[in-house]
């Protein structure tokens, strides 16, 4: 049956790919290489201390902060502001975004308002924020809240817009209630977009902690960075920034976990 004179070769595999798999240790490796190069550059004088202090100096500043016991106070102060501001901004933004995604009237009325208010620089409004919210915790939390509110609104309604309409029609055809459809079809469908958006909004929240702690803050990583910047104490500046990076990495790791758990249905 087989014509053996003709050339036989295996069918070429052309599928696969386009599905990134975790590569262990690549992340830490990149970090290590970068920091090592930076340290080497600083030690050999290629990078002048004016341009960037050596990582070892920044670590020195961190150790100092830790020994003095101020580290925990700074961390605790910033974390509580971050959490309060980010969580409330995300919840509120999620609700508004959902409303914009669901109701024509809300969309027509609020979407342009969001587009108009989002690009207002919160730092520029600091003078007014203080009048509105005082110089206590309120104004700091409010700043983070407003900073994360608008992007969350936009992600959420973007995600809702992208939910497969056939699935919604299916829910309706089974007489599911409006709330059931929103909770069981629209929210899970928008979840990938919302989680991806939360990566961004959490980073924005962390960025804003510095702006928030410009206002009458004695404690907090933002205040620490601020003082370091105004004193041009670059080692402390980098140490503070590194702490914020660690915040960012932690949140990112948590969101990645959540994605793995909540989006495991994705092919």
């Amino acid at each position, binding site marked *: 049956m087989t014509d053996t004179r003709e050339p036989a070769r295996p069918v070429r595999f052309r599928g696969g790919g386009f599905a990134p798999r975790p590569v262990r240790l690549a992340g830490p490796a990149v970090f290590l290489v970068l920091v090592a190069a930076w340290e080497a550059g600083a030690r050999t004088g290629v990078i002048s*201390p*004016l341009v960037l202090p050596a990582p070892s100096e920044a670590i020195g500043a961190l150790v100092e902060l830790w020994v003095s016991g101020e580290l925990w106070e700074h961390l605790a102060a910033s974390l509580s502001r971050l959490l309060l501001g980010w969580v409330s901004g995300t919840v509120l933004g999620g609700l508004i975004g959902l409303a914009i995604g669901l109701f024509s009237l809300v969309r027509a009325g609020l979407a342009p308002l969001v587009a108009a208010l989002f690009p207002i620089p919160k730092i520029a409004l*600091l*003078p*007014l924020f*203080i*009048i509105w919210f*005082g*110089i206590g915790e309120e104004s700091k939390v409010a700043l983070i809240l407003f900073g994360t509110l608008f992007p969350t609104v936009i992600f959420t309604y973007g995600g809702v817009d992208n939910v497969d309409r056939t699935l919604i029609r299916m829910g309706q055809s089974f007489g599911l209630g409006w709330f059931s459809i929103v909770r069981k079809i629209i929210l899970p469908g928008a979840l990938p977009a919302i989680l991806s958006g939360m990566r961004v909004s959490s980073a924005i929240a962390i960025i804003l902690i510095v702006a928030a702690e*410009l*206002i*009458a*803050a*004695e404690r907090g990583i933002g*205040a620490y960075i*601020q*003082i370091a*910047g*105004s*004193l*041009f*104490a670059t080692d402390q500046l980098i140490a503070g920034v590194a702490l914020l990076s660690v915040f960012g990495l932690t949140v990112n790791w948590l969101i990645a976990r959540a994605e793995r758990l909540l989006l495991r249905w994705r092919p």
Partner: protein
Amino acid sequence: AQDKVRLGALRFTSHSGAFVAFEKGYFEEEGLDVEFHFFQAAAPMAVAIASGDIDYGVTAISGGLINLAGKGAIKVIGGALVEEIGVDGQKILVSNQAWDDGVTTPADLAGRSFGITQTGSSFHYMISQIAAQEGFALSEVSLKPLQKVGVIIGALKSGQIDGWTIVPHIAKALAGGGAVKIIGNVADYIDTYQVTTIFTSSANASDKRDLTERFLRAYSKGIADFNANMVDRTEGEAGLESTTRLIHRYVYTSRPYEKAAPSIRNGSMRLQPGARLNLASVRHQLEWFKSEGLVDEEITIEQLVDTSYVEIDD
């Protein structure tokens, strides 16, 4: 050919020495082609001098400035704004609420909140001196770093902070509007206060002596002109008017002249003739920064100041 000089400035009346020198051609006479670079805050200006983006600048002595000097990047070479007893200078203010609450003298500021722009700013220094003189610890005052003058004004008006110090024209405008109360003068607490200084990069100070001297000469002429017209008013109304117009090209530009003129006039304070520098005041400030742990213990007055350019009061 003219030597190019990049001069950093803030759009404040206290920088008018440079504006006058430029407009009246004093820089040109010294063979300097001056190019202004305007900043929104003093701190970036100091950094820009360290990075070599600009050559000269004028600003208050701050922790950042001292630290940059400690890194060997910049040097103070002359003085500008100074406060002395007897000259109308910075005022101590309290909010109406604090006043009603019995804060009527600087001594009452103990246990109160006080607005500053940043830790290590001149405001921080001033309250520390007031506290020292009145005999209470600085830690008894709750310092509120609020970054910007505008923000502090807002906080003071709305009674969220109790006290502040600020230049007289702003203080009087606020008090005149009934928004705050003036309870004293900073000059009473600090015996001759060198508020702002002229500074440049260490490289300029050591390697471009000729250029720097020419710059300071022209700047001094501008200062003399400014003092004569705006402070002493020796040229009468005409000189005041023409100099105000000249300054208005740089300060409050987004307001029409009629609105800007009073602010410019009231804000004009005497600049140090010949860019003299009060080294004693500078040294005192340096020691204070060290004692507060804001700057490196090792930094010496020699690292901070190059005394070879102008007359020194010590």
